[in-house]
């Protein structure tokens, strides 16, 4: 069943036309990797889906309902959670408080402070530490945990490996892999193609705000994605 349907979505940053006519459909349990170069519109697309950025045209449907103009906090209540780029924790609140504040208006579901700490065991001893005093990997784990606290039906992950040490990326991805194995529906933005392809079952490549390549992760070679990534070939496969 289609959980999220996007039709002809446009979004602007001032005069910059960041997302152009994007159409997507995501079924429950899908894991979609959104790839593309810097400035391709990946983050803007995710933020528009989460309601943190206004759509200038097009329709977003979630579970059949039109949510195009719904504010972000109402989308959270419907079950869309975004782990924003740069993690965006509440810096002067503790790990526990960061989780609790997100759980306050959560949908009923499996995620509680305890289950989140079970999924990210590295956070358990840090629960009373201020978020600003955490390492990058710990912050990222907290940010993902905070999004999970809302018991999302669709989890949007923006650049979870950005700015992290390689070992921290491994830790975060181990937890993500476990999470994804439980059947969560995920849209993942990732600069690291290898990571994205390993975790996703579908890949969408954006170039200058448009979808230039879409396909099952198993059928796409790294070369084809790379070509689309840099715009070396048109959408029809013509050079």
């Amino acid at each position: 069943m289609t959980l999220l349907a996007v039709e002809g979505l446009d979004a602007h940053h001032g005069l910059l036309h960041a997302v152009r006519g994007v159409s997507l459909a995501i079924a429950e349990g899908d894991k979609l990797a959104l790839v593309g170069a810097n400035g391709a519109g990946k983050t803007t697309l995710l933020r528009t889906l989460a309601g943190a950025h206004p759509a200038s045209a097009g329709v977003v449907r979630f579970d059949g309902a039109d949510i195009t103009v719904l504010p972000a906090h109402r989308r959270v209540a419907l079950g869309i959670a975004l782990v924003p780029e740069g993690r965006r924790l509440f810096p002067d609140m503790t790990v526990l408080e960061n989780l609790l504040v997100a759980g306050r208006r959560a949908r009923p579901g499996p995620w509680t402070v305890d289950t989140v700490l079970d999924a990210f065991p590295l956070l358990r001893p840090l629960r009373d530490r201020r978020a600003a005093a955490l390492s990058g990997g710990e912050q990222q784990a907290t940010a993902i945990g905070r999004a999970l606290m809302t018991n999302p039906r669709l989890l949007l992950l923006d650049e979870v490996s950005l700015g992290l040490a390689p070992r921290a990326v491994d830790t975060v991805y181990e937890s993500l892999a476990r999470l994804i194995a439980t059947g969560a529906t995920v849209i993942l933005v990732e600069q690291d193609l290898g990571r994205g392809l390993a975790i996703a079952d579908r890949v969408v490549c954006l170039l200058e705000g448009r979808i230039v390549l879409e396909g099952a992760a198993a059928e796409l070679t790294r070369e084809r994605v790379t070509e689309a990534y840099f715009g070396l070939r048109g959408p029809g496969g013509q050079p």
Partner: protein
Amino acid sequence: MTWVNVVVQGVLLGAVYALFACGLSLMFGVMRIINLAHGDLAVVGAYLVWLVADKAHVSPFVALIAALPVMLIAGYILHVALLGRSLRGGPLVPLLTTFGLAIAIQNTLQEAFSPDVRSLGAAAGWIATASWRISGGLAISWFGVLILAVAVAVLGGLDWFLRRTGLGREMRATAQDPDAARLVGIDARAVYARATAIAVATAALAGAFLAIRSTFEPLSGPTQLIFAFEAVVIGGFGSLWGTLFGGIVLGVAQTIGGHIDPQYSMLAGHLVFLAVLASPRGRTLAARSAWT
């Protein structure tokens, strides 16, 4: 003994300033609005208490209990109708909005109540005048102690609310990152409206105490605003206990100045404020402005 008395009176005076300041501090901390109408909203509270006490023939304390929920609702409406909209226009628009609001309130009060100076002191009865005479040079007024106790309870209660309750955590989260707060399901607009409601109610409380303690008239607001602002700056943004401390420092500075020469009272308070601004601590005020 005289100096002990001066300091004690300063502490009691400072409690009034702290009570004025906590709403100002809350609004700035949560939504970066410097509410220039804060003092005038306090005066509105004083008039409301006066009106209720006068019409219903009840003690100002009873009238105050009736007035607080009204001011709480008025604050919520004020945000939804006015401040919330002005916030969309960038950081300068809310400042201008509250400036305009201050003028509108002052003139409406003059129109409605005339510029006469009033006091609720007489209506409050014996509690406004009774005191403990400790010794020849030292007397502690009951009402001063009552205000200090209320100030500690209000500031301590707000601090507890922000740290220990779900609504308070939402308020702190929104203060630290409104965008991220929306992404975890917090309705930032409702949080802002709640903060304004609390700020306006505490302002009304302070205004009523001012009216019982001394006098008030339609133009009393700006002076109280300055004292409240100074208390917030001296105590440092982002801490309610700091605001209480700042209010007390300001109060003690004023009574010490006033003891040396009555005309130095205000000046001494302003000088302490300027000294804090000029100190190394003052330079980091803007950086530490978020609520923790």
